[in-house]
């Protein structure tokens, strides 16, 4: 699982799962580019956590659903050296009943959760192939790629699409030594779902679906991402791994 000497770029790393990934990567020896749509004391905290492991950190503000921002982000990220690992983690979730969902709501979720991953992967791979460097991409999907939660007719398809994106990119870049895999997190203790964890009505219903009977932590996703990005996973590509405490099999 060691990522010693690698440089990783994690999108949406200001909080939650992205932060967990950045922190685990630093512990495993990687320097980390911390991207988020807004940079503030939260991103500085993540950078401080990375530096406390003796690794280098760089905060880059960018809206990864916008092509120009993505290009600029990779340009700025070069300050830490060529990027070896890309984690497409940035995402948004809204809850809207299907019959009320607007075009704008569909586009916002799809652009941030799906188009961003496609664009970041494309820029990452173009640069790596041009410079004849190998690399690894880890995309973050969701348990909702396989299980229904109410009001997610836009969110769930965007996350299942991440799985197909993973497969198809892996097939085209495998010959260049770039591996692409996906993690589908289950219920993870993050600010994005704090409302679920704090709801005495909803929490028991969700936890009842999990074999382990408890939510996971951001570092659980970080560990899986570190493994998939590491040389120990050198023959694993195109795969999607559920890190969900046993939800999808139940």
């Amino acid at each position, binding site marked *: 699982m060691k990522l010693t000497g690698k440089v990783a770029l994690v999108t949406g790393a200001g909080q939650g799962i992205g932060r967990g990934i950045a922190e685990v990567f630093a512990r495993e020896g990687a320097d980390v580019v911390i991207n988020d749509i807004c940079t503030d004391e939260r991103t500085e905290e993540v950078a401080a956590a990375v530096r406390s492991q003796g690794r280098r950190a760089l905060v880059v503000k960018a809206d990864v659903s916008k092509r120009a921002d993505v290009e600029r982000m990779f340009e700025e990220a070069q300050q830490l050296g060529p990027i070896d690992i890309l984690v497409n983690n940035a995402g948004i979730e809204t809850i809207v009943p299907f019959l009320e969902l607007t075009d704008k709501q569909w586009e916002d979720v799809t652009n941030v959760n799906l188009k961003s991953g496609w664009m970041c992967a494309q820029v990452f791979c173009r640069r790596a192939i041009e410079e004849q460097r190998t690399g690894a991409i880890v995309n973050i999907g969701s348990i909702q790629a396989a299980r229904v939660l109410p009001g997610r007719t836009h969110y769930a398809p965007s996350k299942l699409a991440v799985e197909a994106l993973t497969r198809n990119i892996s097939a085209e870049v495998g010959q260049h030594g770039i591996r692409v895999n996906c993690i589908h997190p289950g219920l993870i203790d993050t600010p994005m779902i704090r409302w679920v964890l704090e709801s005495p009505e909803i929490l028991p219903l969700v936890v009842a679906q999990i074999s382990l009977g408890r939510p996971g932590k951001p570092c659980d996703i970080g560990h899986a991402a570190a493994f998939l990005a590491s040389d120990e996973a050198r023959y694993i590509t195109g795969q999607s*791994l559920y890190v969900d405490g046993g939800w999808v099999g139940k």
Partner: protein
Amino acid sequence: MNYSSFELNDKVVIVTGASQGIGRAIALGFAQAGANLVLAKHPGPRMAEIESLKAEIESLGRRAIVVQTDVGVVAEVQALMDKTVAEFGRIDVLVNNAGWTGTNDALDVTEEEFDKTVTASLKSVFFASQAAAKVMLPQGWGRIIQIGSNFGVIAFKKRALYAAVKAAVHHLAKALSLEWAHQGVLVNVVAPCITETESRKNILEKPGYKEWATQQMIPRGRWNQPEDLVGAVLFLASPFADMIVGQTILVDGGWTIH
């Protein structure tokens, strides 16, 4: 490869079918990660190989015992667990790697071949998991890792029976996890594609086969080596995979996505 970062120091690990190929590589990987090994091996040839593996593990400063076991016989599987507990006091990890399959077209599969395949590759996995879980559940911690196959996900000629058995092994991981996960015993699968081992030589050496597979089927562009699986197995056995339950990780260079 340095496996020390998987935090498996002093774990007690059983690997079935350990005398060659994938099983051997996995056993060595655990030893390099600091674990002690119980090497289960079918009674018969290759005793010299298993003894040399034992010596190699001991030269790494780890302990190893060899237990001759026909994993298709429930009493022998139970004896394997008993010997492990008698020697080491516990079982932390079980890797069900041993297996056997016929390679006939479905029309030609005999009852004998069916029974032998199901016994060696499914019954063995079920009862070894059951016997290990009886030790692991009172411990409150255990990891069972089944070696599946990409043919448990996709179909392949002359492997109707094998594919069905491996699909059953994959699904069994989910079913067993449902019963045991909340008590700390997790069951997952590592599923390779055909791996460059002694026992697969006859397939790999068929004219044109390797070129077809590595050029057209595998985006990674090279053949699976036994060592390629080790990382996934160690990861699933490690404390870093505590939320991974009932999953199948394909280690196939991308073959199966096509």
